[in-house]
């Protein structure tokens, strides 16, 4: 197992804030909008340097998406910012008609996704947003795994033409990816090469997959770990290549197993290469209040859960 270490922990939303600021410096067409959550979305640096390119829309997310869609007409590249729940479910039809169907160059940037939002509880903890967004034709869906990757992804989507959903989170987590990485939309990142099982992880679950990989190595299981940061378009080639070698797969995401990354992988595999698969994901449930760590453990999203899923899927492969 390749060794991953970290010297600091940071939140992915701060990676977004830094990326937005840099994208703003690089391209004067980058504009930002927010619905009364500037601090939570870490937009302060952008606002400070480009006040005229920032729009505070107030607590009115539907209006924000519509305004963003309109701003693309004439060449602006709008980045909208609010919590993941209010970025998706709250404004689904506005995104569907004015952004996705109309193919507008809007970047929907969503913080506080998943259970790790913590104490605010289920009303704010969306576990369905990947599903909602990936179902929209033409929508790119990205869920980066740490501060550096989120920053790189933010810069990459500014250069990409078309609607994007960028999902990130609230808690501080290890920073373990390269600070100078080039982010390629739709290209998987090989975290660790292995032969016994393919672990496919996205977002906050990537670090947990690395922790699981270390435990598995101690148990004599050689896990291949792939980071799928872009859930759509999915890197079919990387997944099929790995699964051909390992013969079984575990998908890991901080999302409902209904409609998430795991289902995208399952769809690919059932059509191309039927393979035993286990899902580490929430199981058709809402979240609740608690600390991020408590919730990840209560809802089965810890490294131990990945280890168990791996043991189970290897047994199925052998059966």
């Amino acid at each position, binding site marked *: 197992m390749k060794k991953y270490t970290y010297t600091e922990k940071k939140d992915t939303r701060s990676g977004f804030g830094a990326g937005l600021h840099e994208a703003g410096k690089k391209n004067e067409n980058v504009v930002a909008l927010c619905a*009364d*959550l500037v601090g939570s979305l870490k937009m302060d640096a952008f606002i400070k340097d480009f006040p005229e390119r920032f729009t505070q829309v107030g607590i009115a997310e539907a209006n924000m998406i519509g305004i963003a869609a309109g701003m693309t007409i004439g060449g602006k590249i709008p980045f909208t910012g609010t919590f993941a729940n209010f970025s998706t479910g709250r404004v689904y039809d506005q995104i569907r008609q004015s952004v996705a169907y109309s193919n507008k160059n809007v970047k929907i940037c969503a913080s506080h996704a998943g259970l790790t939002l913590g*104490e605010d*509880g*289920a*009303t*704010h903890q969306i576990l369905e947003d990947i599903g909602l967004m990936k179902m929209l034709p033409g929508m790119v869906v990205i869920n980066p795994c740490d501060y550096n990757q989120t920053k790189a992804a933010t810069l990459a989507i500014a250069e990409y033409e078309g609607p994007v959903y960028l999902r990130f989170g609230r808690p501080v987590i290890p920073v373990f990816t390269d600070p100078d990485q080039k982010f390629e939309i739709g290209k998987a990142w090989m975290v660790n090469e292995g032969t016994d099982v393919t672990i496919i992880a996205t977002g906050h679950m990537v670090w947990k997959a690395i922790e699981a990989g270390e435990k598995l190595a101690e148990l004599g299981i050689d896990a291949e770990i792939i980071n799928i940061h872009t859930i759509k378009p999915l890197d079919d080639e990387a997944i099929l290549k790995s699964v051909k070698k390992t013969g079984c797969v575990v998908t890991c995401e901080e999302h409902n197993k209904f409609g998430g990354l795991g289902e995208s992988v399952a769809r690919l595999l059932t059509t191309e290469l039927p393979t035993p698969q286990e899902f580490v994901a929430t199981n058709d449930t809402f979240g*609740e*209040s608690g*600390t991020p760590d408590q919730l990840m453990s209560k809802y089965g999203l810890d490294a131990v859960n990945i280890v168990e899923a791996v043991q189970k899927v290897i047994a199925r492969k052998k059966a």
Partner: protein
Amino acid sequence: MKHTIKELEDIASQVRRDIVRMVHGCQSGHPGGSLGCADFFTALYFEVLNYNKDFNMDGVGEDLFFLSNGHISPVWYSTLAHSGFFDKSELATFRKLDSRLQGHPTTHEGLPGIRIASGSLGQGMSVAIGAALTKRLNGDKSYVFTLHGDGELQEGQNWEAAMFAPFHELDTLICTVDYNGQQIDGPTKKVLNLDSLQAKFEAFGWHVINTDGNDMQAIVEGLHYAKTLTGKGKPILNLMSTQMGAGVDYMMGSHKWHGTAPNDEQLATALAQLPETLGDY
């Protein structure tokens, strides 16, 4: 009056103590709006609302209350506990794992007193309208009360609801706005000015009254007065001026304490300003 103004003020002081202790206890939650509305909740539950302590979801023959700005859950939980819906010891579980006192109010864990989830802003007026329509269909003459944040009124759904209620002459509906002039990113005037809410709601066909939400006498009288305006073909909007953080000096006068928890020292300072009247949980 069921209580003297002094008795109500004492209850409100305890509610405020509970709020700061709850938010401190889990180091998260929203003290600012909760403190600002402590007098309103006390007046509503101890003087105005006609309810059954044996909680029943349908609330037939009872007045109903819906909290649209769900983030101020601490003030509601404390008031519900002191009104006898559940034991006040449960307040200690606020926002903790496996609690019925979720960060934002919910029916999911079955907490007595709560009839709908809120937290995602802007949805409560529609729900209250639905409940009032059902009361009308059932021939039930009791009232439906709501509370909304002022920043929350920036959500468009409120205005869909605001257009609907007068058109359907929902004159058992008494909506209150926590008019504190603050929201997360700053004063509402700077974020997205609401301008004259009175003129806006009147233009939509509401009967609008103005009350001082941090003066117990005024808020009790205001809510009683609102009741006398029902049955006249118009819904009632109570524009209730409050101070975010009311009762704790350092939390007042800005938006800074919208959603920040006090540390140990700040808690002690706050508690020193809020007499313990009914016993801490």
